[in-house]
């Protein structure tokens, strides 16, 4: 029903566009000069058609369920039911009206279900009537207003402005929403686990929290030495460090090659090929790390007499580094290419060779942008999950040996939230606390990176 109504409104919108434009043409044919191009008159009318429909639709969607519920439950008032019981009755009523109710049917509920159905159908048809009449009224009003000197361009432009603003607002609100969803659970977590223990504790063993029977009362003392985040923070930064050791030199050198040395033809093919690396799903990198690189490193290490874990930080970090190469190479290529040619010419004309020019003029000029690209790469490395889960193991060892397995923030969040979870349990809330700290770390990195990149931009404008 809603779909039909919606299609109808869209059709009406198109028709009113057509009529608006037609009226504009008619005015034009009387040798009067219009204040805007004819299609603005069309858009103007179409907007007048769409806005009231949209507003009524949204209001209806918000208020209809509440009002119907109130009306249905009004029969049960003064009977001493609790809120929870009333809710249950309402759910039963709805289920019955859909024919999905399997329990005992009392006459009371049956009557309610009938009432519910009739209310719904009344609501539906009145919605159709109200929406359509609103559209007709507003379109008629707008149509009458259109004359040779009526302003249509400004309202249309304003409307577009508002639509675009709403779109960007949606993105911002989502971010805010994510932060809020993390914040409350995080606060709950820190009510049980002291912040100090979390930040400075060196023992991370959330499985210990599994043992608790949920009916038992919460006893904070049993969590001591369970949620010390130092090992996983260390693991996160350690693996990110290994990744950057791979990604920075290779990415940077390939970026310099692409920007300065590669001929147009080579660049045309090589750049997309390198960027393919960025398109590979991280789970595939995870495979590669866990099934190819990990065992290979173990064998190599064993043949050299070293003790190498099959799930080593080195394997995960190395493969993660490969994943980040295209970010650094592509961004630094862009930054280097945007260094003005006049600087290169100036250096060559002084008799500098290509490598001298790059080292002494281009690299320093592009450095802020390159640092920005590296910081973006670091925040990717810290946020990367799948490779670590698959290749580096889940035991949170506090170690700086790249051949042992370690774990990261992201991997621990996965471990904690996989399978059955009890909400309101410190173990689950730990994931939110970790998510929050991860968010903060990457946020800071991104802010720094954007600052640096912005500083670079100012230089050449």
């Amino acid at each position: 029903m809603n779909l039909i109504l919606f299609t109808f409104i869209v059709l009406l919108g198109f028709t009113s566009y057509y009529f608006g434009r037609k009226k504009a043409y008619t005015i034009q044919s009387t040798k009067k000069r219009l204040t805007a191009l004819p299609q603005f008159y069309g858009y103007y009318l179409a907007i007048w058609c769409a806005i009231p429909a949209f507003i009524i639709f949204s209001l209806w969607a918000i208020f209809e369920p509440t009002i119907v519920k109130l009306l249905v439950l009004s029969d049960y008032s003064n009977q001493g039911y609790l809120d929870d019981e009333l809710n249950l009755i309402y759910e039963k009523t709805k289920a019955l009206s859909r024919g999905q109710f399997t329990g005992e049917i009392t006459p009371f509920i049956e009557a309610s279900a009938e009432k519910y159905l009739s209310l719904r159908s009344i609501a539906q048809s009145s919605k159709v009537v109200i929406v359509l009449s609103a559209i007709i009224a507003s379109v008629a009003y707008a149509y009458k207003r259109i004359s040779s000197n009526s302003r249509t361009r400004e309202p249309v432009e304003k409307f577009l402005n508002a639509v675009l603003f709403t779109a960007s607002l949606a993105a911002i609100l989502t971010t805010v929403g994510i932060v809020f969803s993390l914040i409350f659970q995080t606060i709950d977590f820190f009510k049980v686990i002291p912040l100090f223990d979390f930040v400075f504790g060196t023992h991370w063993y959330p499985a210990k929290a599994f043992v608790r029977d949920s009916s038992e009362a919460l006893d904070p003392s049993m969590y001591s030495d369970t949620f010390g985040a130092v090992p996983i923070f260390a693991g996160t930064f350690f693996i990110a460090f290994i990744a950057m050791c791979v990604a920075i030199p290779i990415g940077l050198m390939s970026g310099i090659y692409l920007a300065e040395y590669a001929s147009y033809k080579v660049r045309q093919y090589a750049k997309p090929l390198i960027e393919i690396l960025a398109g590979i799903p991280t789970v595939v990198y995870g495979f590669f790390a866990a099934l190819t690189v990990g065992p290979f490193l173990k064998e190599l290490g064993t043949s050299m007499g070293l003790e190498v874990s099959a799930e080593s930080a080195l394997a995960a970090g190395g493969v993660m580094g490969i994943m980040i190469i295209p970010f650094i190479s592509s961004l630094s290529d862009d930054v280097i290419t945007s260094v003005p040619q006049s600087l290169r010419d100036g250096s060559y004309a002084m008799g500098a060779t290509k490598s001298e020019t790059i080292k002494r003029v281009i690299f320093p000029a592009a450095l802020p942008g390159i640092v920005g690209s590296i910081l973006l790469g670091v925040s990717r490395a810290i946020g990367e999950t799948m490779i670590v889960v698959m290749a580096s193991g889940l035991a949170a060892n506090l170690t700086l040996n790249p051949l042992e397995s370690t774990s990261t923030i992201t991997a621990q969040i996965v471990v904690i939230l996989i399978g059955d979870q009890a909400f309101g349990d410190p173990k689950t809330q730990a994931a939110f606390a970790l998510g929050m700290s991860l968010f903060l770390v990457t946020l800071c990195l991104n802010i720094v990176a954007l600052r640096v990149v912005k500083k670079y931009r100012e230089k050449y404008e």
Partner: protein
Amino acid sequence: MIKIKAKDVDVFYGKKQALFNISLDIEENQVTALIGPSGCGKSTFLRCLNRMNDVIDICSVKGEILINDFNINDKSCDVVRLREKIGMVFQKPNPFPKTLYENVSYGPTIHGIAQSKQEMDEIVETSLKKAALWEEVKDRLHEPGTGLSGGQQQRLCIARAISVRPEVILMDEPCSALDPIATAQIEELIDELKKEHTIIIVTHSMAQAARVSQNTGFFHLGQLIEHGSTDKIFKNPDNKKTQDYITGRFG
């Protein structure tokens, strides 16, 4: 005395020929101006003289250019040494995003000219003095060169070019981005510099060519129409096209 001798120089951008059969002699310690309408090939010719066209992939140069009787288009020519001897100043001031000091010391550093910090300081000071910039910047040698005004930036670029004591300085419309006062300063400077350097200047301003140069070459559609002493070209040219261009009838 003849410093540079160009013989039958052809330049191609891909398949398109940009210069046809240019033969031109350039006198030592004089200013030679190259004039002509936009796209006539005068800048292209200038860039042949220090092999800057090598930077452009599709560009190829044929013919002989003798500097001190040595053909710079020969395979045995070392481009790094060549460009040490032949400096260049560009149309738009292009100081490096480094300090003033580093801008001027750039050439001496890459050519290993200065043996000590003291020697480098001297080179920087003399170069800036010769470029008539020393008095204005001596207190802020370690501030970025990009912070100067346009005219100062261009004089900084000249200081950078003369820091390696080149025999020839090529100038590609060095004043086209500058205001009249800065232009006058640069022109004065050119007059001073010709005592020690041979200067070739590409310019769009006929008045400038007349003011600063002793010799002038007129380019049109990739050909050198006429060349000779500036007096003769401006007062009594042989070719009608030159006459028309100089009197402003086309171009």
